[in-house]
């Protein structure tokens, strides 16, 4: 049985035919829409490599059936830079050595974006670590990841005080 759904992916509306109800958002993004920035690590909701934003909230794309998300707005790692200008989190991950092999990095960055928008961690490194615990990094770049997220949070807090806050 075929299901037709419509998604807004990185701001672009896409009408999609699902040939199989088993397709997850992760497989849809990678195999059908060819957005391979979102990674398939464990495919069981344990590693966070597939983290995307659905209607602004971070979730594991591997545990989300595409058919169930008809009408959703999706943001992936491909959708966060402004042209050639890196997103502040992307720049911070480079500046703070928040990666080694890079496989978990798209998921880490999307998770960090979700975390910052949730507003629960602020500039507290311990709350950032807790909030990022759903993203594993087998290279062990956690120290750099925490520093990168903290740096962006601090920059946002300063911009807030200057009255020029914009949502990431």
């Amino acid at each position, binding site marked *: *049985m075929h*299901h037709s759904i419509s998604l807004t992916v990185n701001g672009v509306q896409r009408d999609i035919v699902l040939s*199989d*109800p*088993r397709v*997850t958002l992760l497989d849809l993004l990678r195999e059908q829409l060819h957005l391979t920035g979102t990674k398939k690590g464990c*495919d*069981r*909701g344990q590693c*966070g490599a597939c*983290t995307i934003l659905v209607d602004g*909230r*971070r*979730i*594991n794309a*591997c*545990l*989300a*059936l595409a*058919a*169930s998300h008809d009408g959703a707005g999706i943001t992936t790692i491909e959708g966060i830079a402004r042209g050639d200008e890196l997103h502040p989190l992307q720049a911070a991950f480079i500046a703070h050595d928040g990666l080694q092999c890079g496989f978990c990095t798209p998921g880490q960055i999307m*998770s960090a974006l*979700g*975390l910052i928008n*949730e507003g*629960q961690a602020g500039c*507290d490194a*311990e*709350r950032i*670590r*807790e*909030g*990022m*615990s*759903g*993203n594993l990094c087998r290279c062990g770049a956690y120290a750099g990841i925490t520093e990168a997220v903290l740096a962006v949070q601090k920059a946002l807090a300063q911009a807030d005080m200057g009255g020029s806050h914009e949502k990431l």
Partner: protein
Amino acid sequence: MKSFDYIRPTNVSDAIAAASLPGAVYLAAGTNLLDLMKGGVSRPDRLVDVTRLPGLDRIEAFADGAVRIGALVRNADLAHDAAFAKTYPAVAEALLSGASAQLRNAATVGGNLLQRTRCAYFYDAASSCNKREPGSGCDARHGDNRLHAVLGWSEACIATHSSDLCVPLVALDAVVEVEGKNGRREIRMEDLHRLPGEAPERETVLEPGDLIVALKLPADARIFHGHARYLKVRERTSYAFAVVSAAACLSIARGKIAEARIALGGVAAKPWRAHEAERQLGGAAPDAESFHRAAKAALADATASGNNEFKIELARRIIVRALAAAAAGTPERIPPLPASPLSTARSVA
């Protein structure tokens, strides 16, 4: 993953009719179900997607102080609802100690109640498991069972229930609102889950087609808001299931415990209410002696189901810690970090 029919009904009665057929299961976020389907542990013929059913995603506060939580409310949304967290802080603390932020953003309250055990033998299709395949035996019984049950287990099954949320819900006498083929009924949280006995495949008292539509917290559960904690011991500080956890809620008046509520997680096939321990605390002083006496009573019937004797003593100690922390007062901010009660820093009395 075995293929299935996918349907998305738009009202509750259509959903119930569709899910009453053999081989049909409800799909909410699917954070547990899809994982089980990928591993071949669950093999449904039909998924009935309930995520678009109207009116099930609201948190309603009643004038008398009771709260009704729609089954489709996401775990993160409930935990971060400021009024809810202030009134029922142990529930918020339990929610935020479970899973990861990504999973909490997706997972629903109704789905959380029906999540399956994390027993590795249940997940491994090559192992014998009476829960997955009735009558096939239990490889956990003489296998790697250090995290298995110490209360209420049977020779047929020693798996534990892994929900954090359910632990304070049982302690606070929450009620589950269920719609089924014969209309609406209410089930006390404590009666929702079954002990394994001879039929570990039957985990709840729900019948085919039954749909959890809401969860209710009674008004009198508010009295504990100033002295309520959920403490969870994990094998790492975050994003792990409980080895043992405890919800402790106290009402303290004139230096004595007026009423106590205690429940344990990670120790049995259901969230475990410690009634006798609660009775012993009634009228007692909130001190170490009372807490140790209560902890002893709570585990009086515990027996190791394998290489897990340590969980009995661990559960006693976590009860004492949780009671002491509850007596010291609900923290200003939930979750208080560091999250591990084994941490030597701050947070826990």
